[in-house]
């Protein structure tokens, strides 16, 4: 490990430690925001693990997330919570593998809309299954887990995601992904099994998304299938990751935090025109920050290092 990497690791550990202190403040509002930020950090970072290197924009996040939520909701009264978490993770990975295999021949916008259609199909299927097999089982999640617990769980998961991302970046898989992202034909000619690499990464992101859904199920108490699988979530994750920039592992993190705070500011200050102001803010962001926040930061750092232009 180089000294630069060691330094990054130490900083990361310190930041995590600080973040973990949040619930001790006792302020439910900040904890709620913390949970929201943690959730999106995990989702968008794991999303970027796949979509960053491959440039494939997946809108399937909601499908995995909803799957995790529904597994917990259906099993919570009979199976221990921890077991349900494991099941969700496995289910997410399996589903991602299947989806990954299916989407190999697709590219560009076809892939994007395909994942959207997939998420919607799963949403409808689950609603139907819930209706015909579940009834009111699978709708109530009454636990004693509080937002504090959920926050720490998400933080732990975030740590795990960053570790995996860091490890992948150093591994042959990461090397392969970088080549694939630049030119897939070249990668294939180099002997890289592009299909397997893509599927593996997709499985990681799917598994994590399902876990997030499972972890958050207790927060809602009453699970409505149409809200659990809301496509809006997929879009939000994409936007935050793109906002932060997907070239760096910590890119999405830098996108999520200002975005969440901005959302919060708008919701708090414009109660009757929330959606309108959100839309305008969005448009402004798209215009002012084309390379993502990370890209801009790096640009300014580069200029700073050069002595400013």
């Amino acid at each position: 490990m180089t000294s630069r990497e060691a330094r990054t690791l130490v900083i990361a550990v310190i930041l995590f430690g600080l973040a973990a202190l949040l619930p001790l403040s006792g302020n439910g509002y900040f904890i709620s925001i913390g949970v929201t930020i943690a959730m999106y950090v995990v989702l968008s970072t794991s999303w970027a693990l796949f979509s960053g290197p491959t440039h494939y924009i997946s809108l399937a996040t909601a499908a995995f997330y909803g799957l995790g939520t529904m597994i917990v909701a259906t099993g919570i009264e009979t199976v221990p919570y921890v077991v349900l978490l494991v099941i969700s993770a496995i289910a997410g990975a399996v589903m991602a593998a299947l989806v990954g295999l299916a989407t190999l021949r697709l590219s560009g916008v076809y892939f994007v809309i395909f994942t959207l259609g997939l998420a919607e199909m799963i949403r409808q299927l689950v609603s139907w299954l819930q209706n015909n097999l579940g009834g009111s089982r699978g709708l109530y999640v009454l636990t004693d887990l509080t937002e504090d617990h959920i926050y720490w769980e998400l933080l732990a998961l975030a740590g795990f995601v960053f570790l995996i991302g860091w490890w992948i970046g150093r591994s042959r898989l990461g090397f392969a992904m970088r080549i694939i992202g630049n030119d897939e034909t070249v990668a294939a000619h180099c002997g890289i099994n592009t299909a397997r690499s893509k599927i593996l990464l997709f499985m990681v992101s799917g598994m994590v998304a399902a876990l997030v859904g499972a972890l958050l199920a207790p927060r809602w108490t009453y699970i409505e299938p149409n809200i659990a699988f809301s496509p809006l979530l997929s879009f939000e994750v994409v936007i935050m990751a793109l906002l932060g920039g997907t070239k760096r592992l910590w890119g999405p993190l830098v996108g999520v935090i200002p975005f969440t705070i901005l959302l919060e500011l708008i919701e708090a200050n414009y109660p009757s025109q929330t959606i309108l102001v959100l839309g305008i803010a969005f448009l402004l962001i798209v215009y002012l920050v084309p390379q993502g926040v990370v890209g801009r930061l790096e640009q300014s750092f580069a200029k700073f290092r050069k002595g400013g232009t």
Partner: protein
Amino acid sequence: MDILITGILLGGTYALIAMGLNLQYGVARIMNLANGEMLVAGAFAAFWTYTAGQVSPILSILFVAPLAFAANWIIYRIILMPLIKRAKNQGQLEVDSILATFGMGFAFVGIMVATFGADYFSYDYLGDGILIIGNTFALSRIVAFAAAVVICGLLYLWLFWSRPGTAVRAVAVNPQAAGLVGINVRRVSALAFALGGSLTAVGGGLISTFLTLDASIGVLFTMKALIIVIMGGVGDVRGVIVAALILGLAETAVATLIDPGLTLAAAYLIFILVLLFRPQGLFGKPTS
């Protein structure tokens, strides 16, 4: 037989909601996620003219179409042009347009809620049943279907038999090459975007005769339209029509023969299967 007719009528409805997006994405290369909101705006306009002025929603098309055309032209010029100018490649433009139109959609919903309120709006127009070959169908759906046929027909003729239409098709196939042969790609794209928005608004007016809508419901239609456009193969009018009909028929067949609870799941399944076997969509051009 009943399934056939109902399915085709539903397919016509779907063609109406997807045709506009097809032009906007296929030609102007803008993935317009605010498409559903334009649909709802057209529906609101029809609702207003009907309830306030007792004017038939069909006639409302006469002023909704040009208004929507102008509005979309302005949107393209003011909101989208800067993105197009600065995009270094197609991929970046797509990402930018997705993000920007996403925000636009939110803004539209906000404007509509502020102007019309968040209530549901519905009216009964031509809701009587018409007996065709022993089965009853709502007259309003039949009229909407007929209008869809006329609109798609006119569009098809214009695209294939007129010079500006051919220019539009050329830009859809290859913008760079089109530019090389002297087509003003920017202008044609703006035209296509505005025309697409106008079509969507008209479609909204037509479907409002038999559907209950509210300001927030646009996103459902955007997703349906996206599915249809991609399934049909981007840019080709015939693709949209065929995809819309297939979906309409499939949903109706599933609802009648299997279980109405699986209609949308079946629709998306068909979409997925089409893409698995033909990754470029039904009428799309094979990518390398």
